[in-house]
């Protein structure tokens, strides 16, 4: 039978990605680490608002804090997205196999006629 990944991770990742500000933050982080004030710069938002978005992204595991520097820059972590993509592959595979069985069944039915 098909094994599914933890849907907690899946829902959390989907939910974290549902907001345009958070997607823009992730987008910013693809070009490298950034401090919270650097991340906040392009947005007309208060720092607490930005921090809140960062917290959602951190809790979904999409953003991590670098330990190296004192200002603790944030960096992108793509692992949860990999999980989503694997889950989808499994789910698609599951249906493709089911349709294979339907195909065989239909062939058998028509041979018996």
């Amino acid at each position, binding site marked *: 039978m098909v094994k599914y990944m933890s849907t907690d991770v899946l829902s959390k990742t989907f939910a974290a990605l549902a907001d345009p500000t958070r997607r823009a933050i*992730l*987008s910013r982080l693809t070009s490298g680490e950034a401090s919270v004030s650097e991340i906040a710069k392009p947005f007309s938002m208060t720092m607490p608002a930005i921090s809140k978005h960062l917290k959602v992204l951190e809790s979904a595991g999409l953003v991590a804090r670098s330990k190296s520097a004192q200002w603790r820059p944030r960096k992108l972590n793509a692992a949860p997205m990999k999980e989503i993509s694997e889950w989808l592959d499994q789910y698609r595979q599951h249906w493709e*196999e089911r349709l294979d069985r339907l195909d065989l069944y239909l062939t058998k039915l028509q041979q018996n006629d």
Partner: protein
Amino acid sequence: MATIEHPERTLVIERVFDAPRTLVYDAWTDSEHIDKWWGPTMVTTRTIERDFSVGGSWKYVMEMPGSVSEHSVENKYTEIVPGEKIAWTEFAGGDTSNQVTVTLLFEDQGDETKLTMLIVHDSTEQMNMNEQGGMLMGWTMTLDSFVEFLAKQSAN
């Protein structure tokens, strides 16, 4: 061609069967048929209840040989157009936090039948927070194309 309302969270699977449309349709609607092909070879599918009507549902169990545990599933029909379309909701992997709507479209293609499956991940309240923005991480998107997309966005 089917219109896809939420491409960012829709999984599309197409298949052409060498069988008339009525037979392909019956294979999905008749318990006698569906129990025979639905589950993997080693797994027995047993229909407990089937009310093939909008609002009705198909309850079934999947039994593994030699196993006491059985996996019970309920698919709830949301739309039926005889011979053409069937839609239902189910919980992917049996997880109630993960509801999907499956839509089947049946079309003639010469002597064959084309089946289009649209599997839409239903947005929960949380996911709905920003419906207009849509969900970026699409069902059909791979990780690579996602990272590429993000990189492009930041380049602009």
